[in-house]
């Protein structure tokens, strides 16, 4: 995104060629100083409220600190927390639960989202209004969504149970989406799919609309079948967009907290205890600050790595 040299303002070129004090008098504040003044507050704020706490987390992860007993000091444990984390069956269980949640929610979101995008791309009458209606769920607060879905999932009285009972011919009181061990992992998947399918749809739609018309025209001339057109043109052109959506959803769902916390709070037992819920329990219920910090570091490193790939994908698409 660097501008061509010709776009550099004449005044800039003049200022650069002029000795510093003279330039300063000419221009008030130099561009270099202005850039610093403009960017520094943001960077400083992020350092104070994000990076400093993060480094603190890393430090705590090497200790046996307990936040509810601040006066006791914090014995240095080196890598002990990490060692016991990797040998903790509960952590591996949480990883499995998270994996199930991430995999199935994203798979269903991709299928539904891509399908909806293909349908919307037909530009039937009124597609704008329907798009806005479909987009609504993803703008809502995950916490509030989790709360009201727990109402819809109530056995007997819940609308979801009633609808499933009505269409599948089972007794709506016979199953509890958030109370039955085999069903609960699917409850969180259903709510996530309800909420985030629009996200995948919107990005896929952008992908579909980026396909240049001449490709389809050429396919028309070659009398390519619809299926062939889809496989040879649509899919490869949309794939980068789809990957972007998948990557972002994977990051978000890997660290999912709010919706699950309110819908199931990890239960029944620990069947829906995703990593963030385990982290909350260790940090704010058992007050094992050092141990939970180690888990936080692992969570963060994973997310950071994925974010790196995500930003590269983002830049690749932007510069197309």
């Amino acid at each position, binding site marked *: 995104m660097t501008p061509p040299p010709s776009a550099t303002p004449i005044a800039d070129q003049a200022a650069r060629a002029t000795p510093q004090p003279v330039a300063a008098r000419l221009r008030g504040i130099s561009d270099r100083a202005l850039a610093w003044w403009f960017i520094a507050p943001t960077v400083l704020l992020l350092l104070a409220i994000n990076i400093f706490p993060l480094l603190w987390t890393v430090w705590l992860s090497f200790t046996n600190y307990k936040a509810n007993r601040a006066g006791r000091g914090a014995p240095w444990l080196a890598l002990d927390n990490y060692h016991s984390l990797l040998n903790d069956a509960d952590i591996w269980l949480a990883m499995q639960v998270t994996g199930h949640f991430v995999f199935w929610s994203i798979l269903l979101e991709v299928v539904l989202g891509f399908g909806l995008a293909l349908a919307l791309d*037909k530009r039937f009458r009124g597609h704008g209004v329907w798009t806005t*209606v479909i987009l609504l769920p993803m703008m*809502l607060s995950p916490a509030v969504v989790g709360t009201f879905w727990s109402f819809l999932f109530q056995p007997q009285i819940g609308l979801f149970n009633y609808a499933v009972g009505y269409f599948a011919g089972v007794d709506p009181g016979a199953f509890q989406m958030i109370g039955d061990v085999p069903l609960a992992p699917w409850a969180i998947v259903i709510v996530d799919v*309800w909420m985030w399918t629009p996200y995948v749809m919107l990005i896929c739609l952008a992908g579909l609309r980026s396909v240049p018309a001449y490709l389809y025209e050429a396919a028309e001339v070659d009398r390519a079948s619809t299926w062939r057109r889809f496989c040879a043109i649509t899919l490869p052109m949309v794939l980068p967009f789809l990957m972007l959506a998948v990557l972002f959803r994977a990051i978000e769902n890997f660290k999912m907290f709010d919706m699950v916390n309110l819908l199931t709070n990890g239960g029944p037992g620990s069947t829906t205890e995703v990593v963030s819920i385990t982290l909350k329990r260790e*940090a704010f219920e058992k007050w094992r600050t050092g141990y939970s910090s180690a888990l936080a570091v692992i969570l963060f490193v994973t997310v950071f790595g994925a974010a790196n790939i995500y930003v590269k994908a983002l830049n690749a698409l932007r510069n197309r």
Partner: protein
Amino acid sequence: MSYLSAAHSVVEPLPWAKRIAGALVALYAIISIVPLLWILVTGFKAPADAVAYPPKVVFEPSLEGYVNLFTTRSRQTPEYVASLPPAETWYDTLVRARGMVIAGPSKFAERYFNSLVIGFGSTFLAVLLGTLAAYGFSRFRVPLKDDLLFFILSTRMMPPIAVAIPIYLMYREIGLSDTRLGMILLYTAVNVSLAVWLLKGFIDEIPREYEDAAMVDGYTRLQAFVKVVLPQAATGIAATAIFCLIFAWNEYAFAVLLTSGAAQTAPPFIPIIIGEGGQDWPAVAAGTTLFLIPIVVFTVLLRKHLLRGITFGALRR
């Protein structure tokens, strides 16, 4: 990308394909909107209707949910209720019909107000800082620009729960725990990354020639920024502000872990609205409705910029 927007004009879908596509989309949209409508409707049900089996679609509307949302009530003996002077307001009457009297206002209004203060406060700061930084990144040669931009975005991806512990400890040290200022600063830090990325996209689209011309006319760089760039970026700034506001409004993880009283916002409060014998669903639904209305309005206003917002400004249309 604008030259691509006419992509399908030549290959027009067949009429029947359009009709089927429209029907499928409408079906999905209706199914996905039903849960929201159900919550809206539940807010106007009497408690018995809200938990009736089979679920009631036709019912006698009641404002009990909203009354319960805004008040705390205590149960009294029928003799005591009968001995009271006649009820002065409709909501007194409503509550007394249930054998209760209003004990005072609930905390909902306070929590909602906190959401407003923290939402608008952090949005203002994030947009202010974000506009400056975005202009800096857009127009100046900044050393390590790409790394800085990645650093800024990566902070947004950080799991809230991973930094909540030290922020909790830090805020406890400096007296910011459970204060509105603390939450405003925190949400500003989370939102500023989105603001920088989004606004950089918007400012990149404003031709530099405008500022150059202004500076040739004798404006300083700062004057050109304020008088030329800012008005041009007004739409982008407004869209960014709405995105920041929605995030701050919706945020739950930090709010539930770091606030408990004075600075608590609505999201951690709504789920714990309890009536006699468990969750008071009409009141929860009423609170949810009041909480979601601003979001629905903003979503409709933002619909043209949604794609930009969810991809940090990378995709435009």
